[in-house]
């Protein structure tokens, strides 16, 4: 990034922060509607000690454990299934219609059904996260294998590669960058979904923090919850991209 762009960026973000601070400090909006920046910092300190029976760290653990278990299950099932659907016609014929049947239902719509089926504890939320994350895992793996350049397959076959070698040594490595993109999209989707599920029903987690702030008209607590959600989403994305670059150096990285 050039220095000029960086300066403009700092200027824009600084201007928004200054405007936020000014309208709240001058009393132009009620603190019930929009908390002031100092109030948010103060609330963050209060929350880190403990809020509604759990410290900020415990809420972090609650949200993260749900997101990771649901996400890992989705990746472990979705990616191999997507690859198989692209590779073996019978698997495609069997599972393709199921995917097109379930895909149009937005993940948040599963939240009440998950509560009905699994109750309000972690299992229900893990299920919803799984549902939201499996679609991008599966679709990207499927398209990645389908779009492997035919000349790669043809060349390998000419050189005497068998089915297993074609799949594991040619198709999957060639499709890996796109599979990784699917996994990254799925992670973002899983994170957004766990927050949504916690907003609906939870006893811990950042979505729970935000919703309780809303119920108690504590807009500063709500803001802390949202900032925490944003920071974590950002950190997960950053971590994923770093891993992607290291593990798949042959992919095209933005």
């Amino acid at each position, binding site marked *: 990034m050039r220095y000029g762009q960086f300066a403009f960026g700092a*200027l*824009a973000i600084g201007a928004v922060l200054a405007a936020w601070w000014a309208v709240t400090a001058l009393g132009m909006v009620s603190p019930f509607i929009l908390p002031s920046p100092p109030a948010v910092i103060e609330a963050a300190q209060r929350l880190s000690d403990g809020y509604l029976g759990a410290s900020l760290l415990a809420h972090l653990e609650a949200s993260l454990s749900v997101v990771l278990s649901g996400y890992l299950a989705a990746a472990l099932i979705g990616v191999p299934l997507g690859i198989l659907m692209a590779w073996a016609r019978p698997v495609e014929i069997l599972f393709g*219609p199921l995917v097109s049947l379930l895909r149009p239902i937005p993940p948040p719509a599963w939240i*009440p059904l998950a*509560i009905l089926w699994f109750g309000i504890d972690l299992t229900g939320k893990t299920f919803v996260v799984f549902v939201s994350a499996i679609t991008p895992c599966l679709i990207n793996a499927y398209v990645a294998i389908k779009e492997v350049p035919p000349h790669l397959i043809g060349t390998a076959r000419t050189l005497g590669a068998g089915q297993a070698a074609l799949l594991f040594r040619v198709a999957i490595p060639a499709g890996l960058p796109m599979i990784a993109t699917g996994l990254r999209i799925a992670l973002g989707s899983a994170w957004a979904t766990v927050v949504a599920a916690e907003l609906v029903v939870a006893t811990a987690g950042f979505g729970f923090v935000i919703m309780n702030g809303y119920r108690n008209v504590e807009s500063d607590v709500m803001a802390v919850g949202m900032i925490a959600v944003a920071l974590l989403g*950002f950190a997960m994305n950053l971590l994923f991209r770093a891993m992607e670059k290291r593990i798949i150096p042959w992919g095209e990285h933005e």
Partner: protein
Amino acid sequence: MSEPESAARQTRPMQAGLAVVLGASVWILIWWGIAAAFEVSPDFLPTPWQVAEKLIWLATHGIGEGTLWVHAGWSLLRFLSGFLMAAAVGIPLGLLMGYVPLVRNLLNPLFELFRNVPPIAWAPFALLWFGASFGSQTFVIFTAALPPMLMNAYQGIRLVDPGLINAARMLGAGPATLLFRIGLPAATPLVVAGLRIGLANGWLALVGAEIIAGPGALTGLGFLILVGQENLQATLTIGAMAVIGLIGASLDYGVRRLERRAARYK
């Protein structure tokens, strides 16, 4: 691609559509078989027929503020108001970002900052600001649908072939001609692709916002899902989910057709 091959592909959509319908019926039969064979309580997993019956009943009998049509109508209205507002703001702003470096440099960092907040996380603040009604849901849909439309419009202008612009400029085209005769037509496919992503995001956000707003809202398909859960009527919950999926898929189909038409500009 050679000619015969593309001709062969022409006949395939019909067959592919038939295969999907057949395959889908197989899965619905499996669902039916499980629910019937294990005698699962309809409050937990109803059969497809029980769900259909519930939807037919709901078409003439009201829950909350009205029948199925009333709820679907409200959901669509909320969705459209948020989606159209996002398009009206996002596309012009994105085009402007593509054209004016100052606007781009100022707005890009802000988008990078805010895109880390999942749109649904805005729902509680929206409820606080606009109340549990039309306004808050429109706001959440707007926040969800805006970024893809804006970013695609911006990329659409940025990726216009510079040779095209230079050629037009040499032939004496002014800024207005450049925008309306070169920039916009070239950007159209990406702008329409942005509409499609924005549509999917917005529809997802609508359902999320309706569920988070709680059963107090009394209208919307998300409300029906919630009522079904709270009254332990899985028929209602699953029926409303099916209607949401159906409407979402139809909207997506419509925009895809538009997209195919727009791609011809290229």
